[in-house]
Structure formats: structure tokens, C-alpha cells
């Protein structure tokens, strides 16, 4: 088995994931690109299990399982955030998310700063 083949596959998948995260405007598609990156890492871990003689056997595969669990938790919370964003703004375009200013509809506790007039109109 030539380990360079899955390694290069993983590197290309990671590059595709980076490209997707930077290029896509839809938040759901951004999450899909993040999944591509996580899977590239998983492939590296599983392949490293065959090439590296570790003290503990199968450590790479155990870590791949851990990363899968992390990805499941990430996708759950991420989709909850995306759906909340859609409920507030009727759009999941990440370009339209105002950064740094509190949105009045979800203000928790004492609202600080001026209300986001532009966002309320949009």
C-alpha cells in the first residue's frame, strides 16, 4: 500500500474545503465545506495509523472516531445557529450578518449599544 495516495487525497480535500468555506455565501454550504475539511483530517489520521508505528496501536483510528463525534456536535450547534439566523433575517447569507453589533431581537440582558436600524429594515 502506497500511503502517499490517501495522503494526497486528504490534502486535496482539505484544499477544497478551505476554498468552499471562503467562497460560499450560503451558511449551509459553508457547513458542508467544513465537513469536507474534517473528513480530510480523518483520512490523514486513519492513514497515519498505517504508516506510524505508535506505542499504542490504532491510535489514529481512535482519534478519527473522536473527530467524527466532534463533527456531529459541531453540525448540531451550527445548524441551530443557522436556523436561528434564518428566523431572524429570512436569509442565511453569511455576508449579511452584522458583526459586532447586537441584534435587538435576541438581545440578552441589558441591551448595550444602539439598535441596529439597518438590520431591522433589511
Amino acid at each position: 500500500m502506497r500511503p502517499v495516495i490517501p495522503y494526497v487525497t486528504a490534502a486535496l480535500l482539505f484544499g477544497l474545503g478551505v476554498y468552499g468555506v471562503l467562497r460560499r455565501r450560503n451558511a449551509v454550504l459553508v457547513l458542508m465545506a467544513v465537513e469536507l475539511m474534517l473528513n480530510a483530517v480523518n483520512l490523514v489520521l486513519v492513514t497515519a495509523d498505517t504508516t506510524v508505528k505508535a506505542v499504542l496501536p490504532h491510535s489514529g483510528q481512535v482519534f478519527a472516531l473522536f473527530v467524527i463525534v466532534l463533527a456531529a456536535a459541531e453540525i448540531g450547534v451550527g445548524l441551530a445557529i443557522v436556523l436561528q439566523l434564518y428566523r431572524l433575517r429570512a436569509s442565511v447569507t453569511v455576508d449579511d450578518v452584522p458583526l459586532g453589533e447586537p441584534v435587538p431581537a435576541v438581545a440578552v440582558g441589558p441591551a448595550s449599544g444602539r439598535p441596529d436600524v439597518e438590520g431591522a429594515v433589511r
Partner: protein
Amino acid sequence: MTGADVLLLALGAVAVGAGALVVATRHLVRAGLWLVVCLGALAGDYLVLTAELVAWVQVLIYVGAVVVLLLFAVMLTRAPIGPSDDLDRPGWAAALVGAGSGLGLAVLLIDAFRWSRVDLPDAGTAERLGEQIFRSWVLPFEVLSVLLLAALVGAIVLSRPDIGRSKASSPADGDRTGGGAPVGAAQPADEGGRP
């Protein structure tokens, strides 16, 4: 080139091609379906690399659960059925960074491993992996269970509009994420507050 190499090449080509379509297609739903192809090819890669348990967990969790969640999100956000033109932001910066990181990592790994050959290790069956997880990696395993609980609570708090809302603000504008099906937009918040 052995049979494993040919399989790895073919499955890797399928995975990279499907991944490219995931980030390039103009149909939202098709992106999710190409993601299924990509993740399935990766599961085949894991099988060739003798990681049996990881392959089946990949099929179960990624192809079975994560993609279904993503397709649910696509439908709950009222995505258009046909092709949509506003999915991408213009610019070569993303392509530059993506190609740079991907090809850079590929060159690094090719330089590190050349065309060397390794023997496949013992198969990562559920018995061997379970032994490792519950003997050497118990603490990370338990920490991960706490993290899953935290993610669960966080997702519930995020999708319930009546939690953490200040008294002064207006009543909630419907609970769309709670049950999966869209509820009336004028539903007051108290009805979602069942114990």
C-alpha cells in the same frame, strides 16, 4: 501497484471529484447529495486502509445523520429548488488560498513519503478499537460525552426563542426549529414552554 493502490486511487479520485462538485455546484440540494458521494468514497478508503469500525461509523454518522441534518437545514431555510446564482461570492482570493493550502499540503506529503510502500496493519475491528478506547483513551472519551451533552443543551437553548429573552422585548415570533415543521409565525412564546 497492488490492488489496494488501485482501489485507493479510484476512491480518492471519486472523493476529490465529488468534493469539488460540493463546493462548485449551483444547486443547494445537489451539493448535499454530492457530499454523500464524497463521504461514501472516503468510507471505502477507510475500508481499504483496514479501518473497519471507522468506515461503518462514517457511513452511520456522516452519510446517515449529518447529511440528513444538512438537507433538513437546506429545506428549512426555504432554499430554491433550481440553480441559484447568489451562492458564491466573487473573487480569486478563495481559489488562491484553497489551491495554495491544498497543493502545498500535497507537495509536503509527497516529499515526505515519495512512493514508499508500507504493509497494512491489523484490521481495526470493533474489538481492538474498543479495547484501546476503554483502556488508553477513557478520559478523552468521557470528556467527549460531556461535550456532546453541552452541544445538545446549546442547540436546545439556541432554537428555543423563549429562553434567555429579556422581559422588555416582544413575544416570540414562532418556533420553527423546535419540531422540525414550520409552525404558525404568530404563535405566542408560552405555548412552546411545555415542561
